């Protein structure tokens, strides 16, 4: 039984990371109305920014986290200003191709600076959570606890921001109806920039939380972003609760799949699940949210 709960814990850790990435993606979808393929590159950029801060600048983990969030938010805003805002009236195909171009560019820059080798970010609090081990027999590295807690805090903060502040309301309004929002005087440029900044910061935080238990390399964002796509399709494009729920579902499916089916095939499972679900329900699991 404790093995089962172990998988639940692992799944929640993965799910937290996926949810944060998917949240940024789903918010940007509300603005762009296209899947932002370059979002995975932001995830990777966040990891490298933290790596740079902690090695070259000697910052501690939390400072590196904030640094990464700020830098990545900056990159995201730049990409909105320089590329996406200029393609606003073009066919959606153009945005998608431009996003692919951005993905290739950011990845190539990271590779040019840091090379294709793997890098590590040390765990800020190595070791496992003793209380859980003694009382429940579960092995929970502290970093995994930080991931889950950090994700929950961010999700609550994002929820409060979107529902309780005027700026948050303008983002939702823009996602629901761009023309309508513009008619009541909402500034599209400002909302787009804020949304991209948030999505970049979320991706960076997800990456910095995750890398102490994984590796940093130029293509690290690719599989994560693909899974985030799976998640927002399952949860409904543009839906915030859908992104959180979908992230957790994929995280759990993967951790159970890796344990009970095969570690080799764990990456295939998420995509196979998507293919299966979309084959049966082309409109996604929560068609009500999808627009």
């Amino acid at each position, binding site marked *: 039984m404790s093995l089962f709960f172990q998988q639940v814990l692992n799944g929640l850790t993965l799910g937290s990371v996926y949810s944060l990435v998917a949240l940024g993606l789903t918010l940007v979808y509300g603005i762009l*109305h*296209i*899947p932002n393929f370059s979002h995975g590159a932001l995830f990777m950029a966040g990891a490298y920014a933290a790596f740079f801060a902690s090695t070259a600048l000697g910052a501690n983990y939390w400072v590196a986290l904030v640094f990464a969030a700020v830098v990545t938010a900056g990159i995201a805003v730049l990409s909105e200003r320089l*590329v996406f805002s*200029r*393609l606003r009236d*073009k066919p*959606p*195909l*153009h945005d*998608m*191709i*431009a996003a*692919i*171009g*951005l*993905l*290739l*560019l*950011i*990845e*190539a*820059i990271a*590779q*040019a600076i840091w090379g*294709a080798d793997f890098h590590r970010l040390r765990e800020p609090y190595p070791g496992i959570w003793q209380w859980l081990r003694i009382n429940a027999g579960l092995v929970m590295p502290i970093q995994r606890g930080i991931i889950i807690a950090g994700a929950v805090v961010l999700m609550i903060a994002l929820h409060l921001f979107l529902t309780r502040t005027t700026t948050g309301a303008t983002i939702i309004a823009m996602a629901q109806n761009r023309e309508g929002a513009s008619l009541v005087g909402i500034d599209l440029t400002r909302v787009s920039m804020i949304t991209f900044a948030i999505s970049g910061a979320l991706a960076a935080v997800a990456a910095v939380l995750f890398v102490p238990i994984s590796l940093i390399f130029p293509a690290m964002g*690719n*599989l994560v972003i*693909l899974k985030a*796509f*799976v998640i927002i*399709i399952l949860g409904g*494009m543009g839906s915030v609760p859908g992104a959180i729920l979908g992230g957790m579902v994929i995280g759990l499916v993967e951790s159970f799949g890796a344990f009970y089916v095969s570690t*080799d*095939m764990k*990456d*295939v499972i998420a*995509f*196979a699940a*998507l*293919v299966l679900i*979309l*084959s049966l329900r*082309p409109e*996604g699991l929560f068609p009500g949210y999808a627009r």
Partner: protein
Amino acid sequence: MSGLLSRRTLAVAAILAGLVYPFVVPNDYFVYVMALAYIYAIAALGLNLMLGYTGHLNLAHAAFMAIGAYTVGILTVDYGVPYWIAFLLAGVNAAALGFVAGIISLRLKHHYFSIFTLCIGIIVWLVIEKWDGLTHGVVGIMGIPAPTGIGPIRFDTTLAQYYLILAMLALALVVMDRIVHSLTGRAFMAIRNGEPLAEALGVPLMRTKVLSFVISVAYAGFAGALYAGFVRFLGPSIAAETNAFDMIAFILVGGLGTLSGPVIGAIMLTWATQSLQFLQDYRLLVFGPLLILLVMFMPKGIIGTLKARQAREAGERASAARREQAEADASADGRKAPAHA
């Protein structure tokens, strides 16, 4: 009529250029790179049918090229099947798998379709990498035989293969020309321009889209089969999505939804990357911005831009002629007017 004539002249000139090319370049390396560019051009032609003519971004195109290549690789190396039978089966296999993938994925609207095909591409890549027993995994397939000779013609030199691939490219272009100028081709474009309108005009949406998808990936499958026989080594990286991105770049540079665009784009970009050899892995540093700048400033590509200019000039000529005609009519009216009064 003169337009048709010049089109034919251009085509003949292009074929002649392709035929004499090996004799004007200094060594085999140039022939090799050009043949590779032709292979990618065939695959890009297929992708263009889906992307440029039918308006759907299929990100699994490289995966179907890999399916074609691996069909040849596995059949010839592990089962001793003759190359040309394997070649045909590669196209059939890609088309059959494309039919299945198409039926599922084409029920999805634009970006859902793109994400779904991206996932299919990743699944194919992961399966090739992990299924050691069938695909030799990360080791790859080595020693794939060159295409066997047809009659007295042998294909064991780079030069002979170059001509084989050139002939295949010409054939691919002729077939594509027939397709896009047929009624079915018009149906593809109608779907690109607006699905509700196409449906209202009586185009069976699903059947037409699946047909376009199957033809498109069959091109990828045959290109993959040629690739396997030409490069004679296969690894999982051929299915990587960056390969599909490359093909999108070829199409964009040449011209989306034009017949010769993908070919011109493939040749130009292949040579551009060859001359950027010193950049090695940093090739993408140039490729990424190129994609962005193209969609921003020259979304029609080279051929598209030329065609648009031609059309504009023709339009100006026509409107000038109309204006002259109108003026002539007006002055004729003017002369008549006093008579009426």
